[in-house]
């Protein structure tokens, strides 16, 4: 029996870990049921644009330029992620990078070269749209100057197929803060939308207190979350912590992505904050990406609402990813 569809569950975003990041499917269920059609029409009327099915990928913490024992392979995981995305059966509309695209350098020329290398690798992605926010390793030393020169503004918003995306910068002030100017901008940006609008926020650091003594927080994150609180469909994607994590608070669900350079351990295990050692036998273990979509939206399938699932283990790792790739593509 179908689960009842309402405006809250309608836009749930389901994510799947695919070993080198995460794939998200936006869940419009358009035309799947009379209820779905009714809600889509209502959202279109209220928000100005009815949502239509699409998927997108989150990648994070590529740290181009990093070199050290936790990962002696440099950009190989990032390049593998590009291959995975290009090999997906269903091409995503969009790839979001949630910060630390590059590893910092004291030499601005060297750091600029790292940004160029990032762009060269990311430029191989066969997707229509790539969006980025900075991490502290991109923008913490110079207030984001180099990043803006290479990638444009560090905070902005855009609409895509009925979903409002908001890029937030919580690194350029050097401290883990968004800052009053950006929060004022956010409030004005949100004021244009009804509370039913589906919203995806992407940023680098967690906006809630995940682990302040590991610098896993945003000092004024509560002001951001208060601004988002009236909205019924909010998904926050972030990086920084180099591991998967899901947290729900109010109407917002927060998802952290794996890194593409090295992983941090689970702080709840009582271990110190040190990268998980590199294992040459499993060089891409614990690294990842994320893709978002709603499998139930496919034509002819039974209508269903998927809850958020970020760690479908059958898709984790390079073996599992094979299930999601086009025929003839292998890793």
């Amino acid at each position, binding site marked *: 029996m179908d689960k009842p569809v309402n405006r809250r569950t309608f836009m749930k975003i389901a994510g799947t870990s695919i070993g080198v990041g995460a794939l998200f499917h936006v869940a419009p269920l358009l035309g799947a049921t009379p209820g779905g059609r009714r809600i889509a029409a209502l959202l279109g009327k209220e928000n100005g644009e009815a949502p239509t099915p699409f998927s997108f990928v989150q990648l994070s913490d590529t740290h181009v330029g990093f070199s050290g024992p936790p990962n002696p392979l440099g950009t190989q995981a990032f390049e593998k992620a590009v291959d995975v995305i290009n090999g997906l059966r269903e091409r995503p509309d969009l790839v979001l990078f949630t910060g630390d695209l590059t*590893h*910092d350098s*004291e030499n601005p020329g060297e750091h600029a070269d790292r940004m160029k290398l990032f762009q060269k690798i990311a430029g191989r992605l066969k997707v229509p749209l790539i969006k980025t926010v900075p991490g*502290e*390793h991109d923008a*913490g*030393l110079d207030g984001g100057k180099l990043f803006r020169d290479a990638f444009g503004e560090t905070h902005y918003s855009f609409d895509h197929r009925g979903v409002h995306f908001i890029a937030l910068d919580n*690194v350029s002030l*050097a*401290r*883990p803060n968004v800052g009053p100017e950006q929060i004022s901008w956010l409030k004005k940006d949100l004021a244009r939308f009804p509370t039913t609008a589906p919203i995806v926020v992407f940023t680098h650091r967690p906006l809630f207190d995940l682990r*302040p*003594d*590991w*610098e896993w927080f945003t*000092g004024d994150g509560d002001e951001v979350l208060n601004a988002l609180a009236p909205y019924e469909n909010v998904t926050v994607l972030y990086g920084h912590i180099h591991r998967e994590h899901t947290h729900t608070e109010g109407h917002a669900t927060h998802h952290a992505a794996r890194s593409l350079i090295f992983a941090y351990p689970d702080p709840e295990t009582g271990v110190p*904050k*040190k990268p998980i050692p590199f294992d040459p036998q499993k060089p891409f273990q614990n690294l990842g990406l994320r893709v978002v979509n709603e499998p139930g939206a496919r034509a002819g399938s039974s209508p269903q609402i998927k809850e958020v699932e970020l760690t479908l283990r059958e898709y984790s790792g390079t073996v599992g990813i094979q299930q999601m790739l086009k025929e003839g593509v292998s890793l």
Partner: protein
Amino acid sequence: MKYARVLALLLLLAPIMTARTADGAEEPRAVVVTAKRFEFVPSTITLKKGETVKLVVKSEDVTHGFFLRPLKIDTDLTPGETQQITVTPQSAGTFTAICHHFCGSGHGNMKLTVVVE
């Protein structure tokens, strides 16, 4: 040169010094902490629960942060300036203060262990 030696001696003794104010009240014990890329010196300090202590904190190279939420410490350390932060720990335990002003590639592991007995 002599002045520098006296100053160095004072700084050395600061963690164990107490003094009296003009009205005779005992001044809090001073604990000196220096921030530099990518460490705090010393790396561990020990306080006593209920004891008021004056943390004398400075940076000797670039701007660092000094953040320890359980003691409500949240400040930047600008080179050339010394900050005095008075705290009275109310709970025993081991806490971690961090630099939360990005200072370079080793920033993520720049921490100070604060033991409250």
